[in-house]
């Protein structure tokens, strides 16, 4: 089923202009991701891991190097790549069902097929019965499930997760991690998870990519050779976690925050004809 979904990054470099000088945020990122693989990218804040994900999804297209999905260069957003953000970004004026349907606006499916696949994906994230609920009626965990359903409903080749559980309480987070593992196994989809939670990275990932800040680069890649589904208390996971945590044992350098990366322009991105 998952013969497609190979992602390869080749010598990826990305910099933002800060005070006229280019500030490098990603330096020489090379990574090959196999079909159906679960990759966790972990690093402290400012290591460029979220920027990396924005490049993969196509929200930013100024970079050097190559991003290939099944051999095709990635250019701009595409329905073949799904994403879940930390802030779920559901539209408050739409119901659960309508929010998921939003992703299918440009889908070639017939209306009946759309209805079916929406229902299937709401069932996949265990929210059957909440189709008509509005986001303000949902808990944070439920909202994030809807966002996952929206990210998957186009049956993309690859799913990108940008700290999806970062804003949830610890109990909900632990529960959703197990849920995500189940969903990933059910779908067999190539998945890239960005997180600053080493436990989460190790628990879910087939491989854990450890990143270092200033400029963002890969420090090392740690394989997690344990079969899924995994058990949280597994001592081998704990050992790997401690090993990775040792990479971050240096006290963070106390510096003032550098000028944050500029937010992408919003309407200028559209070519307007006025």
């Amino acid at each position, binding site marked *: 089923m998952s013969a497609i979904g190979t992602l390869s990054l080749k010598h990826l470099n990305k910099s933002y202009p800060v005070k006229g000088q280019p500030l490098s945020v990603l330096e020489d990122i090379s990574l090959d991701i196999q079909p159906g693989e679960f990759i966790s990218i972990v690093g402290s804040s400012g290591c460029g891991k979220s920027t990396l994900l924005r490049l993969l*999804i196509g*929200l930013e297209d100024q970079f050097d190097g190559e991003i290939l999905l099944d051999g095709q260069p990635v250019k701009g*957003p*595409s*329905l073949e790549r799904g*994403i879940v*953000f930390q*802030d779920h*970004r559901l*539209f*408050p*004026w*739409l119901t659960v069902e309508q929010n998921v349907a*939003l*992703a299918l*606006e*440009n889908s070639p499916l017939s209306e009946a097929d759309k209805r079916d696949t929406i229902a299937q994906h709401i069932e996949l994230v265990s929210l059957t019965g909440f189709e008509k609920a*509005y*986001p*303000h009626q949902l808990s944070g965990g439920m909202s994030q499930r809807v966002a996952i359903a929206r990210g998957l409903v186009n049956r993309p080749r690859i799913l990108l997760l940008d700290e999806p559980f970062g804003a949830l309480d610890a109990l909900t987070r632990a529960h959703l991690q197990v849920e995500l593992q189940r969903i990933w196994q059910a779908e067999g989809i190539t998945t890239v998870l960005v997180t600053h939670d080493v436990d989460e990275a190790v628990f879910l990932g087939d491989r854990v990519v450890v990143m270092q800040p200033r400029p963002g680069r890969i420090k090392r890649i740690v394989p997690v050779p344990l079969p899924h589904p995994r058990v949280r208390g597994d001592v081998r996971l704990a050992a790997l976690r401690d090993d990775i945590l040792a990479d971050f044992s240096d006290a963070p350098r106390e510096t003032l925050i550098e000028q944050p990366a500029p*937010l*992408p322009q*919003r*309407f*200028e*991105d*559209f070519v*307007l004809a*006025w």
Partner: protein
Amino acid sequence: MTSIPRSVSALRLPPVLAGYLTALSRGLLALLLPLGLLLLWQLIAEQQWISPQLLPPPTQVLDSLLELYSSGELASNLGISLARVLWGFAAGSAAGLLLGVAMGLSPRVEAYLLPTFKAISLVPVIGWVPLFILFVGIEESLKVLVIAKAVMVPVAINAMKGIRNVPVGFFEVARLYRFSLWRTVRKVVLPAALPSLANGLRLGLSNAWMALVAVELLASSEGIGYLMVYGRQLFQLDLVMATMVVIGVVGLVLDQGLQLLERHLLTWRNSAY
């Protein structure tokens, strides 16, 4: 100590009833001040502290209100005024929405238009009347134009602000799912900005009503504002005050009606933000 909460809970009403009671008591509180003023007014009139030519008693105002109503003068003049508001509001809100949405979507349009727009809007409606009279005369088009101008400003400003405040993340979602510009506007920008748009329309409507009265006082031979001028010229202050009451009540009804409609249409907003 423990017996006190028990006695309180014994007195507790069923929640629905208690809810009605709170609403009712708040309504009564709001009525306290006007009732007090009414009593004071009646007292002043009865004691003749101010001459009844200057301050007719409330009963006389009520009489002339009833007379206005039964003679059909109230309905015909109010109808004319409401029609003016309707046309002015329609024209003004259409122009305001167009302008506000364009300025909200495109920084370039804003750069071209906003300074001029602000300068124009800072000249109050009344200040435009002499110029408008020269251009369009003193017929219906004057009233519609003046009301439209009063409506356009808050509608445009609120539309623009509403669109500016749409979270960047929502635009990114639209890009991810490859929405066209039109689809982005229809499916993302307008719904997200709707609360702000509704606010602008409400402000516009109350502006429209005030502008109507102003322009009818200045230049009109019919309508609710004219009724007031007529009363003043004949020194019938009971008529003037009766029209004041009508203007206030109609204004309140318009505003509350729109608010009710807004609350009904925007249920998702109640706890979303």
